[in-house]
C-alpha cells in the first residue's frame, strides 16, 4: 500500500493507505480527526470541506495520495488546543449559525476561504458561494449573517495585526 505524508494542522503526519482511500477517510480514520464530516457520496453537501494548501477542498473528492506533501487544515486546526475561537467560528456562535452542528465544520472552512479571497462579500456573493454546502437545519439565514459578521471580524483582526 502506498504511504502518504502531509502537514495537518501544523503537524507532520504520515500513513499507509489503499490507493482508493479518500482524503476525508485518511483524516477521519487514520488521524482520528472526526470534526470533518461525510454527509453525502456525490460531493454535493460540503460537510467535508478542509483547506489544502490554503484553499477549500471537498476532502471526499480528493484521494489521500493526491494530498501527499500538502499542507492541510481541518476544523480542529482553526482554534488549536486553546479556547480562543477563530473569528469565523466566533461569528457562527454569536449569530446562531449552527444547529445540529453536522454541516458546520464544512461551512466554517468554506466561509473562511471565501473571505480570504473576498474580504467583504455581499449577501448575494455569500449565498452564491455556499452552493456547495448544504445545511438542513438553519435555512441559511443565520449562516449568511454569521459569514458577514465573520468577514468583518477577520478584517478587524488583520488590521490589528498590521
Amino acid at each position, binding site marked *: 500500500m502506498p504511504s502518504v505524508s502531509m502537514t495537518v494542522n501544523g503537524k507532520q503526519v504520515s500513513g499507509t493507505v489503499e490507493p482508493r482511500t479518500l482524503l476525508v477517510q485518511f483524516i477521519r480514520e487514520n488521524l482520528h480527526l472526526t470534526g*470533518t*464530516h461525510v454527509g453525502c457520496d456525490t460531493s454535493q453537501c460540503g460537510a467535508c470541506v478542509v483547506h489544502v494548501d490554503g484553499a477549500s477542498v471537498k476532502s471526499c473528492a480528493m484521494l489521500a495520495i493526491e494530498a501527499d506533501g500538502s499542507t492541510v487544515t481541518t476544523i480542529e486546526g482553526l482554534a488549536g488546543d486553546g479556547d480562543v475561537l477563530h473569528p469565523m467560528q466566533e461569528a457562527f456562535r454569536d449569530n446562531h449559525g449552527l444547529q*445540529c452542528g453536522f454541516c458546520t465544520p464544512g461551512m466554517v472552512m468554506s466561509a473562511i476561504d471565501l473571505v480570504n479571497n473576498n474580504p467583504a462579500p455581499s449577501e448575494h456573493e455569500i449565498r452564491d458561494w455556499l*452552493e456547495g454546502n448544504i445545511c*438542513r437545519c438553519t435555512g441559511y439565514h443565520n449562516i449568511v449573517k454569521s459569514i458577514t459578521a465573520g468577514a468583518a471580524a477577520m478584517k478587524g483582526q488583520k488590521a490589528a495585526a498590521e
Partner: protein
Amino acid sequence: MSATGIGASVKRKEDFRFLTGRGNYTDDINQPNQTYAYILRSPHAHAKIKGIDTAAAKSASGVVAVFTGEDMQVGSIPCGWGVNNKDGSPMNEPFHPALAQGKVRHVGDQVAVVIAETYSQAKDAAELIEVDYEELPAVTNSEKAIAPGAPLVHDDAAPNNMCYDWELGDEAEVDAEFKNAAHVVSIDLTNNRLVPNAMEPRAAIGDYNKGTGEYTLYTTSQNPHVIRLLMGAFVLQLPEHKLRVVAPDVGGGFGSKIYHYAEEAIVTWAAGKVRRPIKWTAERSESFLSDAHGRDHISHADLALDKDGKFLGLKVYTKANMGAYLSTFSTCVPTYLYATLLAGVYTTPKIYVNVKAIFTNTVPVDAYRGAGRPEATYLLERLVTKAAKQLGMDQVAIRQKNFIPADAFPYQTPVALQYDSGNYEATLKKAMELSKWDEFPQRKAEAAKRGKLRGIGISTYLEACGIAPSAVVGSLGARAGLFESANVRVHPTGSVSIYTGSHSHGQGHETTFAQLVSETLGIPLENINIEHGDTNRIAFGMGTYGSRSLAVGGEAIMKALGKVVDKASKIAAHLMEASVEDVEFKDGKFTVAGTDKEVDFGTVALTAYVPHNYPHETLEPGLEENAFYDPMNFTYPGGCHICEVEIDPDTGTTQIVGMTAVDDVGRVINPMIVEGQIHGGLAQGIGQALLESCEYDDSGQLTSGSYMDYCMPRADNLPNFMATTESTLCAHNSLGVKGCGEVGAIGSPPAVINAVLDALHELGVEDISMPATPQKIWQAIQAASMPAAAE
C-alpha cells in the same frame, strides 16, 4: 429577566464543541476490535428471493460473517400505533422483517449483512453474494395500489394493499350541511413525498459484552429509550437491564430518526453472534433508499359555505402512502396528526374525514417535520384561498370571517381536539404589517414594469404538538405513553446536572433547559449540565419529536426543580432556624421574611451532602429529585405566514422576495433559538413547495436518489426571513410554552403556493402541484395561454 434565564437570547452552550470539530456523532465513535457492516439491499422494488448464495462472500478477504434473513430469525419490527378501520376491526399489520424473508418489497430493502475487518472489505464481499430474484410487478402510487389487479405488496396479509380504511366524523351529518350550502368549493391535491435528509447519515454500532451479557447500541436516534423498548421487547427479546442504547450527538432528525430501523437490530443481534463490535454507517445513497420518507398524500376535499362565505362543512378523502412496511409513527400521522387538524383556525361546525392507508413498493413513510399537520394545513389553506377566489371574496376577509375568536377558548372542534389558547387575528395583523400587505399592489405594478409576475400568498394555520397526553393517545391506539422524565442532581458544591429523556439533535436543549434551571435556582449557566441520549444514564424518556421537548420534557424538568426547591427550602429553614413557611427563595438565596437571615443555594447543597447540622429525623441527606410529566392536552401553536414571489414568465423561475412568519409558540425561553427553529422549518416548507420531490418510476426505482437529483434547498434558493413571535400562553402547562420546531414547515407551503398561484392568476393558471418547479410553472403558463383545443 436575568441575563441567563427565561426570555434571554443566550448563546448556545453546545456550540463550542460543534464549532471546533469536537462533536461526538455516532460515526465518530470507535470500539476496540471493531468490525464493519455493509448491508446488501434489494435492487428490485418487488421480487421473490428464490435463493441466496453467500459462500464466495464468506470466504472473501477480511470477512468475519455474512447473515441473511434465514439466519436472523427475530421478531417483527413493530409499529408504534394501532389504527382501527371504520368498522372497528384492527388495521392490517404485516410482518416486518429486519432482513428480508423470502421477498423484497422496495428498492433498498435489506437482504443480507456482510461483516468484515474493514468497511471496504465488507462492501467488496457483498458484490460476491448471489441473490436469485424472481421479479414481480411493483406499484408505487397509492391510488394505483388499491385499483383492482394491483400487485400485492404483502399478499394475503394486506388484501388490496390496504393497511386501514379509517374515518372521523359522521359523513351523513356533513352531507346534510352541503345540502343547505350556497357554495361548494372542491380541490384535488397531492402532498408530495419528501426525503427528510438530516445531514448526518444514519449510523449504528452494536456491541456485546461477553463478561456481563449486556448489549450496547450506539445509534443516530431522536429517542434512545424508544429504540430500547421497540428493539429490546419486540425484535430481539432483550430485557431493558441488558440493553443500553446511546444516541450521542445526532446531526439532525426531522422525524426520520424516530423510527426503529432494521440496521439497529442487525448490528446489535450480529454483535452477539460474532462477539465483536460492529459499526454500520449509511452512505447517502443508502439514506435515500432506507431512511423513512415523509408526506405522500393524495386528497380530495369539498368545502360547503353559506352565501356570505361562512364555512358550513368540510369533507376530506385522503389516500396516504405507507410505503412497504409500517414505520414507528406511520399510522398515526395521516389520522390523529392530520384529520384532527382539519378544523384549522376556523369555526367549521361539521367535518368528515376518510383516510385510506395503503402499502406500496416504496420506502416506508414516517413522521417528517410537522407529520400530518403540514398535510392538513396545505389542504385547508389552499382550499380556503380557492374558496375566496371562487366566491369573489378577499382572501384575508374570508379567513377573518371564519376565525375562531380570541375569546372562544377553550374551543372544542368537531374533530376531537380542544384548543386551549390562541389569537389568530393578532398573528394575522402582525404578519400583514410586517409584510406591508397593503402596499402589495404597488409592488406588483412595479414588478410588472420589469416583466415579472408578482404574487402574494397567505396561510393562517394551527398545529397540535407537545405530544402528548398518554391517556388520550392510548385511547386512540398509541402503544406507549408519551410523558417525559427528568432528574435533577444537585452536586455538593451546588452545580447541577439535569438528566432528561428529551433528545437534542440541533434544537439547543443544552442551552434552553439550562436557562430553566438558571432561572429557577439562580445559578449561572456554566454550573449547569444537561445530559441526554443514554438509557443507562437517564431513567426513562420518550425522546424528541412533535415539538414536545420543552412542552413535555421542559415541564418534567420544572417539576423536578420544584421538588428540589421544596427540599432545599426545608434544609435552609433548618440552617436559619426558621419555619419553612417563612423561607423565601429568590435569585439563588434563601431568606426568612422580615429578618436579615440568608443562606445561599450552594451552602444548602453542601449541607445536603455533608449533613453534620441537618434535620435527620425528617429529611434524607442528598439533593436529587426525579419527575415524570404527562401533559393534560396537546399544545396549539399557530400563526400566519405570508409569502411574496416574483415569477419570470419566460423561464418559470420563482424567486421568493418576502417570507414573513408570525408564530404563536407560547412563552419563548430563548428567542434566538426559537427564531432559528422557525427559519429551519420555513426552509423545509419552501423546499417542499418549490424544490423537493421524491420520485419513483413505474418499476419502483427511486429516480431522485442523490443530491444531484433530489433538490435540497441551497443558500441561493432561499431569502432572508422575517420571523417573529406573537404569543398567547399555553393554558395547561406551568411555563406557558407550546413548541416551535415544526411551525415553519407547517404554515409555509400553502403560503408559497398561494403566492405562486396569485402571480399566475392573470395568465389563467388556477392550479399547480408541489414542487412548483420552473419547468412546471413554464408548462402551466404555456398550457393556459394555448387556445382551447378544438372539440
